């Protein structure tokens, strides 16, 4: 049996714990902004409420402590200087309050003991106008009565009545003490507001919500089953009511999910205090910025990421940020910043932890990786691969074990926690500028959209968050090839490692389906791979059910679920698959994988993939495939007109449609093929009559054309095709395409583009011009150097790497030797670790794959912002 007193105590505990967390944070803020009366008022009110409630329900120890803390706060309010010591003392008091509360919660009785030590210090501090005072010699434990209320007021101390008045002037719904005092009318008013608040929120135990969630999950399953049954009977009177049931179920599901949602700020609540204490301990000056604290996610997810987040923030404070002195020497502001941000993006929550500290030390990571045998002496993995190694078990490069982060739990634990909930973690780091960790986690774990695939006659569910795209393997454009038994797919200009799902799961061999299979392209963290399946059946919202413990050792399977037709199928775990690729990879060297992952076909300089299509006439047109975001086919009926221009609903927005030729028009009826080009959030659909082919070949491209929108021509399989200029068409869709991108100021930044291939020069120059650069395009590095020597000034240099005579690396070095401080960005068709490190040696600012127009613009923007920061 639970009496009313116990209910009261329970409520008091949860309320007071929350209040104390708020006080913690507000105090840290207050220390930074000692003149902010508003914060002080809030702290005051909270501490006062705690004190009042403790008195009300008879907890003398808590009451005495709270009172002493309140007295110090009163001094602050009267204008006493806010010192770090005073704040520390109050924080220690808060900690003591918390520990007493914890015991109270465990035993339902206030623990015996004395807080004389703290109370003496607090009183001393209040007496000394808040000036710090070592109170050691004044401690005489056990002689002081905790009944602070009964002693006479000391000189300069705030009287209880004053406090009450201050308190009453700031209305607060949680106030209980004031109900005991004050006049009747006021009590009436307050009661009313209390009632209103009670109507708006109520506390429900987590168990209740969990049970609801389980039942809703079952309901979703049953609904799916019913839908499946009705699907088999074309005429059924159940159809309409079932549709309604289905809608209501969906709404119910959403509603219950919402009750499980909590703002991520709850997981951050303790961080300001932690960072403050760390900063003091480490002698650093640290500011913690928090953005998007209101972003909501499932409480189950929240619980799992709480510790990893805390650990990472500690890491940033400890290892990431330098001391004030080091920062000053490096020309940075003495105060280091840790920025936490959270936002929702396509069904996932993205959490970033960024610091502006020293960045990861690549050399040290490399050394450590060699020491613990992750890589060999001769391995030179790319930087991104090296960064990844810090997530390996047993990896910690801290020179000295500090009390802060050197506790044996490393990033590997963080990563496994995040893996556990189907999340991914990535990291970027710039030497001397700081590091950014980005964590992507699913909104909820209970119900996820999944792709149902077939392999060797068995069905499996693939969570959609990990799926990037589906590729039909049958068409010749998507050629699956074998390198000594390893399957790879040429996907646009990348080589994608492939795994056969049936081999991965050791399923019995089926008779070959005649090459008619699918590749599910998945991304886990930074690794991109494809799994080959026999068929893709449909998508379904599945309720993830954990597998029994006897099956838990199978890393590739992440759970099971019951489909609409009642059968149980296994859910694939993308992380597990990625790991199993990793395991296969370890047999070779890391280096070979790095090369394999990134190396395009040899001779890529001269071969390229072109998408060939017809538009407006019988002659063929072509566009580099890598510039095309997607091929789509829409029903002409879907086309809408806005001020006379054709548009179509596309991925939640309106996409303008542009004819690829002045003679081209929309099809009269039926299907209309489109080439979709996307930049940021905007897409444009290019209307074509027919997509003819994708060719990958060495192509002779003749440049030069009088017609707008045409760059030049190439002979493809004996026929001449016109190469279209994408940069011409895109702005037709959005008048402001590319605008807003140019650097600030009226003066366009001057950009030197060096490439021996006329095709690339003519391809890139318009793109760069449209992006707001004043472009000078030259065919050779010698010419370019000559110009620079003659005094030509450029803000940016973009250069091809593979050039005759003077290649891009030598060119960049020569520029540097002439002490030109201009940022150089290299363009290459071959990106591997060796070339990237070579580009860095040559002093290049960035290194971007040819055709990666977006990457290039990005690199330029980065370089520009670095320049303006440095200025």
């Amino acid at each position, binding site marked *: 049996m639970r009496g009313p007193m116990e209910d009261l105590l329970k409520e008091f505990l949860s309320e007071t714990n929350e209040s104390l967390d708020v006080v913690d944070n507000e105090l840290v803020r207050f220390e930074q902004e000692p003149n902010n009366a508003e914060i002080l008022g809030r702290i005051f009110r909270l501490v006062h409420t705690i004190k009042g409630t403790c008195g009300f329900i008879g907890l003398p120890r808590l009451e005495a402590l709270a009172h002493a803390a309140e007295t110090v706060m009163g001094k602050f309010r009267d204008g006493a200087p806010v010192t770090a010591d005073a704040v520390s003392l109050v924080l220690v008091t808060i900690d003591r309050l918390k520990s007493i509360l914890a015991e109270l919660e465990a035993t339902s009785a206030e623990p015996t003991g004395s807080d004389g030590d703290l109370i003496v210090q607090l009183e001393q501090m209040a007496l000394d106008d808040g000036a710090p005072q070592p109170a050691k010699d004044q401690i005489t434990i056990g002689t002081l009565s905790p009944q602070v209320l009964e002693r006479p007021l000391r000189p300069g101390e705030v009287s209880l009545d004053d406090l009450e008045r201050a308190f009453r002037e700031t209305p607060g719904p949680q106030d209980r003490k004031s109900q005991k005092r004050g006049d009747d009318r006021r009590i009436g008013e307050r009661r009313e507001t209390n009632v209103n608040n009670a109507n708006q929120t109520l506390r429900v135990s987590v168990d209740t919500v969990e049970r609801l969630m389980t039942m809703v999950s079952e309901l979703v399953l049953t609904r799916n089953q019913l839908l499946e049954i009705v699907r088999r009977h074309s005429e059924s009177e159940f159809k309409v009511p079932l549709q309604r049931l289905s809608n209501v179920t969906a709404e119910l599901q959403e509603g219950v999910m919402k009750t499980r949602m909590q703002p991520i700020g709850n997981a951050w609540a303790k961080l300001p205090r932690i960072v403050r204490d760390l900063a003091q301990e480490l002698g650093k000056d640290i500011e913690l910025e928090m953005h998007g604290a209101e972003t909501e996610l499932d409480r189950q997810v929240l619980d799992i990421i709480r510790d990893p987040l805390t650990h990472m923030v500690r890491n940033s404070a400890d290892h990431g940020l330098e001391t004030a002195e080091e920062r000053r020497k490096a020309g940075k502001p003495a105060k280091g910043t840790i920025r936490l941000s959270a936002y929702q993006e396509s069904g996932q929550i993205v959490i970033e932890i960024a610091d502006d500290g020293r960045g990861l030390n690549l050399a040290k990571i490399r050394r450590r990786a060699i020491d613990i045998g992750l890589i060999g002496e001769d391995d030179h993995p790319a930087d991104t691969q090296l960064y990844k190694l810090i997530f390996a078990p047993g990896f910690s490069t801290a020179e000295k074990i500090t009390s802060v982060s050197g506790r044996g739990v490393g990033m590997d634990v963080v990563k496994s926690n995040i893996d556990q909930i189907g999340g991914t973690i990535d990291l970027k780091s710039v030497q001397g500028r700081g590091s950014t960790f980005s964590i992507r986690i699913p909104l909820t774990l209970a119900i996820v959209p999944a792709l149902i695939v077939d392999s060797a006659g068995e069905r499996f569910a693939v969570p959609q968050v990990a799926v990037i795209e589906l590729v039909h393997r049958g068409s010749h454009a998507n050629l699956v090839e074998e390198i000594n038994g390893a399957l790879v797919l040429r996907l646009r200009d990348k080589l994608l490692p492939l795994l056969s799902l049936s081999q991965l799961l050791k399923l019995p061999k089926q008779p070959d389906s005649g090459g008619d299979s699918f590749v599910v392209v998945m991304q886990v963290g930074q690794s991109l791979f494809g799994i080959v399946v026999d068929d893709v059946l449909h998508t379904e919202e599945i309720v993830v059910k954990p597998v029994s413990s006897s099956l838990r050792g*199978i890393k590739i399977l992440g759970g099971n679920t019951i489909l609409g037709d009642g059968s149980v199928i296994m859910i694939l775990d993308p992380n597990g698959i990625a790991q199993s690729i990793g395991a296969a990879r370890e047999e070779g060297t890391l280096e070979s994988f790095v090369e394999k992952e990134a190396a395009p076909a040899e001779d890529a300089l001269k071969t390229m993939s072109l998408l060939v299509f017809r538009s407006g006439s019988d002659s063929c047109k072509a566009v580099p495939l890598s510039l095309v975001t997607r091929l789509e086919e829409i029903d002409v009926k879907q086309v809408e007109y806005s001020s006379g221009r054709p548009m179509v609903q596309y991925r939640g927005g309106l996409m303008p449609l542009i004819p690829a030729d002045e003679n081209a028009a929309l099809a009269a009826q039926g299907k209309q093929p489109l080439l979709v080009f996307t930049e940021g959030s905007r897409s444009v659909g290019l209307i074509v009559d027919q997509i003819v082919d994708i060719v990958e070949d060495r192509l002779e491209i003749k440049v030069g054309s009088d017609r707008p929108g045409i760059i030049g021509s190439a002979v493809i399989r004996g026929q001449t095709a016109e190469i279209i200029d994408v940069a011409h068409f895109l702005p037709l869709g959005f008048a402001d395409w590319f605008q807003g991108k140019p650097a600030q100021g009226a003066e366009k930044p001057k950009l030197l583009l060096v490439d021996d291939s006329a095709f690339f020069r003519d391809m890139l120059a318009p793109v760069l011009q449209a992006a707001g650069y004043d472009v000078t395009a030259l065919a050779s590095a010698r010419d370019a150097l000559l110009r620079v020597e003659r005094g030509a000034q450029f803000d940016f240099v973009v250069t091809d790497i593979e050039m005759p005579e003077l290649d891009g690396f030598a060119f960049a070095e020569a520029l540097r030797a002439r002490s030109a401080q201009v940022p150089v960005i290299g363009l290459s068709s071959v990106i591997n670790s060796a070339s990237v490190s070579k580009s860095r040696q040559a002093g290049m600012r960035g290194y971007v794959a040819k055709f990666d127009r977006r990457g290039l613009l990005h690199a330029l923007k980065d370089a520009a912002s670095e320049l303006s920061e440095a200025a």
Partner: protein
Amino acid sequence: MSLHPVGEIEYVTAWIAGQLFGIPIKRVHDVFEVERITRVPLAPVEISGVLNLRGRVVTALDMRTRLGLPPRESEKKRMAIGIDQDGEAYGLLVDSMGEVLKLSASAIDGVPINMQREWAAISSGIYRLEERLMIVLDVDQILNFGKDTLAA
């Protein structure tokens, strides 16, 4: 809890490869006919797969494999004894069900020392019935397999 006189235990019995086995009824959640089993790739050999029992996912354990016997050849529908172990649902696949027997707790014999190791490990005793012997199965031991094999 039990209405029966102290000293009597009820057993759910089942036939596996011509041998009668019994499981104390308080360990049995339900008995059901197996309709469709989904094979679980990479699973320990003892696990035949998973199945849907009234919206619950049940892990099916093949008792023949567990006892080191060859798989059954006939295509007849199989029966399963549903077990709840730490909140997880397991189904023990047997050839057919027997009747429920009420037996005296004191009449149980120990496992003969010459019984095969695989059998002895999952048996907790033997009853001498009139026409035949009934082996009492130890449910905890039956389910105690995957952990070893997977951990290895």
